[in-house]
């Protein structure tokens, strides 16, 4: 938990412009942190923004607070996946890991991004929606959010985590190429039911020209074709050819 020490705070409000999610408020001559909204990203601490040193960390005393911090602060490594940031591999090492093979689509739903943050209850809604459409959620050894899911076949999160606010967290899953339309339609529905945003990435094996015909399904659903991509150029070894 991050707090503002009222004894030290002079109410100058400098810290407010440094909060990534507008969680620093002002009342009665002092600034304070909205604990429901703070994501423990530690930007205010790391940038040493308070000239009086009034912003102080308090021990993160339960698993969910620690999870919240690790997901919101890219400097931290996730304990299971060993990856910094939000702890997922997605396309980065697919040339070696072969996590997404030909005929499959990796789905990376970057909840709360850009910049709005996400309450885990909204991440649950999205996870459950794509599971119902046929997607299989990534297991805990691949993606951090699974640690909060007792049953990956439903996507439901443990109730205790619902009110935690994270800067972002990725709902990661896979489906077959022929299931992609159903999954995208589920996302088109659930996007109307959440209080935040998400950025969507689809991970696919591609031909030597960097193309995959599965993207044609986007035209059927009125979704613009992507102009940006994260291209794994196949230099990792041993190379996965599946």
């Amino acid at each position: 938990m991050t707090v503002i020490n009222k004894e030290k705070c002079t109410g100058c409000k400098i810290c407010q412009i440094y909060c990534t999610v507008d969680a620093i408020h002002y009342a009665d001559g002092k600034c304070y942190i909205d604990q429901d909204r703070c994501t423990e990203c530690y930007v205010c601490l790391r940038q040493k923004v308070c000239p009086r040193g009034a912003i102080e960390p308090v021990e993160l005393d339960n698993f969910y607070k620690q999870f919240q911090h690790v997901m919101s602060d890219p400097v931290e490594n996730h304990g299971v996946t060993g990856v910094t940031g939000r702890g997922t591999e997605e396309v980065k090492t697919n040339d070696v890991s072969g996590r997404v093979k030909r005929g499959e689509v990796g789905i990376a739903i970057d909840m709360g991004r850009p910049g709005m943050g996400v309450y885990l209850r909204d991440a649950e809604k999205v996870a459950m929606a794509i599971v119902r459409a046929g997607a299989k959620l990534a297991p805990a050894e691949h993606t951090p959010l699974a640690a909060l899911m007792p049953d990956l076949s439903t996507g439901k999160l443990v109730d205790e985590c619902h009110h935690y606010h994270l800067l972002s967290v990725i709902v990661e899953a896979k489906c077959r190429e022929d299931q992609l339309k159903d999954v995208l339609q589920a996302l088109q529905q659930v996007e109307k039911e959440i209080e935040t945003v998400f950025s969507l990435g689809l991970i696919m094996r591609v031909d030597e020209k960097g193309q995959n015909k599965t993207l044609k399904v986007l035209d059927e659903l009125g979704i613009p074709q992507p102009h940006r991509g994260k291209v794994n150029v196949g230099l990792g070894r041993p190379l996965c050819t599946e």
Partner: protein
Amino acid sequence: MTHSLHRSGDIESQKKDFNWFMYQTKGVNDKNIKPKALEFIAAAEAVGSENWGDVKTGPITQYSVEEIKERISDKSRIRGVFTRREQVVEFLKRIKEKDLGQSVVITGVLSEVLPACEEAGVTPHSINYSLGVWGKKDNLPDDVTLSITTMCGHHMIPPKFVKHIMEQVEKGRLTAEQGAIKLANFCYCGIFNQVRCADIIQKNIKK
């Protein structure tokens, strides 16, 4: 983490914005990565990577190159920025020739990145395609602010700080380049394109 994928803003501006990455795969090639990381850095420096860093230390806009190199460990993630397609081509040629076995990713506008791959003689294996932002977009910051904040995909750059910097530039207290460096320092990974950022600030401040 998909932190370089979902950048926004004017397409022509995005065409001057590439990210390069070296990745180790857990349990396969994730031990003693420092010599390989130094080879990647050497290739990036040789072609003039405008920004680069290691999330475990920070970007070259804030830390010395020597310090970042010194602190590279097996938990490091080495990545950076190019502003021209020619740099991507030359970088990929050099890394391919070294045959280091680490995964290499280039993020950017596909109409720029894919021809660069072809020219460099590398074959795309997989792509993470950006399908943009979904959901309740009413409360998002304005497009100019987003075009800057999304250059740090972990969203370490507060939208209000972007406005503050733009006001400082408008008042003549900072140049656009100085403001861009201040913003770049929030992105620990070193993938923030401060050159593009300065251009965005210059084009959008009240004259």
